């Protein structure tokens, strides 16, 4: 038993390029996720992470008080987020808006207005600037009418604009809004064990590889061989996933939850399901390696997609429209297990997720065993 394990282990890890990619690709992807969500901004250089929004200001009628107040409000905003261009003619400004050199045009008049050309992030910001100006202006008119003596207090209170909310998870922890991408990534990495599984199952099939032929003539029971294969791959894959989790939490600094025991448990089940899927795909059918690989891509990328690997909101949308998919999709179940552990502190549902995964593993293994048992080869 032990020597089977030992030599299988040595044989698999000596395939360096396969080992390297199995470990490296989720780590590289995680790093790219981390970069593209802007965790490494330009803060260190003192530059802001976003450009100032370019606008033009057209002075249509500056006689009223409100117009003058709006002008000075824009002047204040210029330091923070607006880049006011030196354009004063309306036609020029409209041309520039058409050329996308501007995001919007503010008109200074009795009732200030804004012209934009599309519905994007910058346009939203410009609109909300105008809205908050209007609301403040209305408020101050009211204050000036009823309590003019208190205007200085009001101004002081306004200048003390505060952040008033604080995001907490139900367990009372802060949470990173991009964390679901990393949950999906770890889930996807777990499922990617399928590639290891498919590869190694070839080594047990006499019609496909020489090693398979050698292993088929041993008197060792087929189930023993499958179990040895599985445990070796599992150990390797489990370590890869642990390294990935360590990298995400320690190097990238994204919390996957504080409960080490629970994290290990999820990683354990995740690695298991990946390997089991691989062994099942590998043992099941008489297909070419290329076809098996494309089926593996189907069984990893598609669940990953549904669990939010590409669009973070995907799992939420599915939960509302067709929740059953989230119960049977292994990537979604894994990602749910991470949620329950890290965000909701929910042991009941956490246990359920793990049980679903365990059930899937058992089913897959049964299928794999049925696929290769009693397989006999003619002597030719």
């Amino acid at each position, binding site marked *: 038993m032990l020597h089977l394990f030992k030599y299988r282990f040595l044989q698999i890890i000596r395939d360096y390029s396969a080992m390297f990619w199995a470990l490296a*690709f989720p780590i590289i*992807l995680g790093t*790219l996720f981390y970069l*593209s969500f*802007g965790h490494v*901004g*330009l803060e260190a250089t003192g*530059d*802001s992470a*976003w450009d100032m929004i370019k606008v033009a200001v057209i002075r249509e009628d500056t006689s009223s008080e409100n117009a003058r107040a709006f002008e000075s409000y824009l002047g204040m905003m210029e330091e923070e987020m607006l880049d006011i261009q030196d354009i004063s003619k309306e036609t020029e400004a409209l041309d520039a*808006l*058409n*050329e*996308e050199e501007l995001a919007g045009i503010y008109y200074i008049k009795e009732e200030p*207005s*804004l*012209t*934009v*050309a*599309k*519905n*994007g992030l910058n346009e*939203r910001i410009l609109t909300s600037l*105008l*809205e908050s100006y209007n*609301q403040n202006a*209305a408020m101050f008119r*009211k*204050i000036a009418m009823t*309590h003019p*003596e208190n205007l200085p*207090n009001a101004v002081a*209170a306004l200048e003390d604009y*505060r*952040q*008033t*909310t604080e995001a907490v*998870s139900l367990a009372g922890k802060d*949470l990173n*809004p991009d*964390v679901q991408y990393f949950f999906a990534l770890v889930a996807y990495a777990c499922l990617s064990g399928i*590639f290891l599984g*498919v*590869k190694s199952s070839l080594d047990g099939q006499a019609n496909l590889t020489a090693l398979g032929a050698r292993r088929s003539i041993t008197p060792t029971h087929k189930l023993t061989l499958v179990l040895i294969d599985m445990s070796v791959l599992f150990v390797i894959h489990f370590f890869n996933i642990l390294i990935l989790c360590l990298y995400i939490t320690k190097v990238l600094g994204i919390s996957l939850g504080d409960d080490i025991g629970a994290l290990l448990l999820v990683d354990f089940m995740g690695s298991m399901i990946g390997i089991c899927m691989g062994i099942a795909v590998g043992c099941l059918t008489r297909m070419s390696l*290329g*076809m098996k*690989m*494309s089926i593996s*891509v189907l069984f*990893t*990328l598609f669940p990953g*997609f549904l669990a939010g*690997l590409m*669009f*973070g*909101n*995907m799992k939420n*949308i599915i939960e509302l429209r067709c929740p059953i998919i989230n119960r049977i999709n292994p990537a979604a179940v894994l990602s749910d297990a991470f949620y*329950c552990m890290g965000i909701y502190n929910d042991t009941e*549902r956490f246990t359920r997720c793990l049980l679903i995964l365990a059930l899937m593993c058992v089913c897959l293994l049964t299928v794999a065993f049925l696929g290769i048992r009693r397989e006999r080869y003619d002597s030719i």
Partner: protein
Amino acid sequence: MTVFKGFLLITKRNIHMMFLYIAIFLTIAISAQKMTGGNQSGFAQESLNIAVIDRDGGKLARGLADYLAQYHTLVDLPDDPSVIQDRMFYREVYYIVTIPEDFEDRCLYGEELLPVTKIPGSNSGFYVDQQINTFLNDVRVMAASGFSLADAVAEVIDNSKDTAQVTMLDKNGFGGEQPLHAVMFQFIPYILISILCYSLGSIMIAFHNPDVKRRMMCSAIPVRRQNHQLVLGYVLMGIIVWLICTLMPFLLYREDFVNDPNMPYYLVNSFLMTLVALSLAFLVSTLISRNELISAVVNVISLGMSFLCGVFVDLDILGKGVRTFAQFLPVYWYELANKLLADNQSLSLAQTVSLLTDYGMQLLFAAVILGVALVISQNRQTA
């Protein structure tokens, strides 16, 4: 043309695999489009299901609930963590504000922050934060200037009903919104790169068989011509895949897409992307000679590039640092051109120039990647 014929023969033997890849990625594209309703940008202000758990019961607390009810649907939720967990898990509620006792003293006059719980990943939660900020700050200003709390709350709610005067120039003919076919074209690079790299990568495995390689090397056809014939085979595959992919917007959004004056530009743009994807596939296949490595390498290239270049999230949302870096990747230029086409129905001279620049950059990237791949493959064969 023996090599070309051989390439086609192997492709024919692997046709199931190729169709499987096409099916996988087209399904991903279409279901992403259908399920998210084309709204990938995530900055649209939407009405959410939110819950206000009121442990205070005072005027301010009720005012906040009324204020939020203007924008969102309030869901009744008992103050019980297990029920809350349940509802959040099944996405029946997206955002929960827990108003503590002595709300006024603690959060309005004091410095304490109001605890809110959001479902991670919903950017829309950000708008609720902003709305709560506005409400509490405004009430504080009114209260500081001598209004009673009840009056202050009433005033702020009243004020919030005014809307700002915003004019939208309908520059793209779709009311300033991204047309749905533009959203689809936004993630076509991922589809093209994945399909072509996966399927051509696995087809090329056959050519890496040492015996096949030796046989090809001792033939009278020089390596350069062999490579040229392979490239021809690639281009043929690329055109087929491109045709299939561009069928999608035609089938899904026939009217809008056919009537869009930018239609030919979208098609040219995606064709250039196909060339980039082909040269990437050629590079991948010269570097990889084993089936089990393809998935890992292709994933890093396709997913990584898509994330950095604004395929899945809008370019606007990416930070400046990422955008600067993305300029060194071909997909960035594709997305720039796509955005330009989505935002403008008729292009001005300057915009036409920048569209051509985007096209040119893609072509250049395709040529450079292909050149690198050819050099590598020639060196390997002679070595």
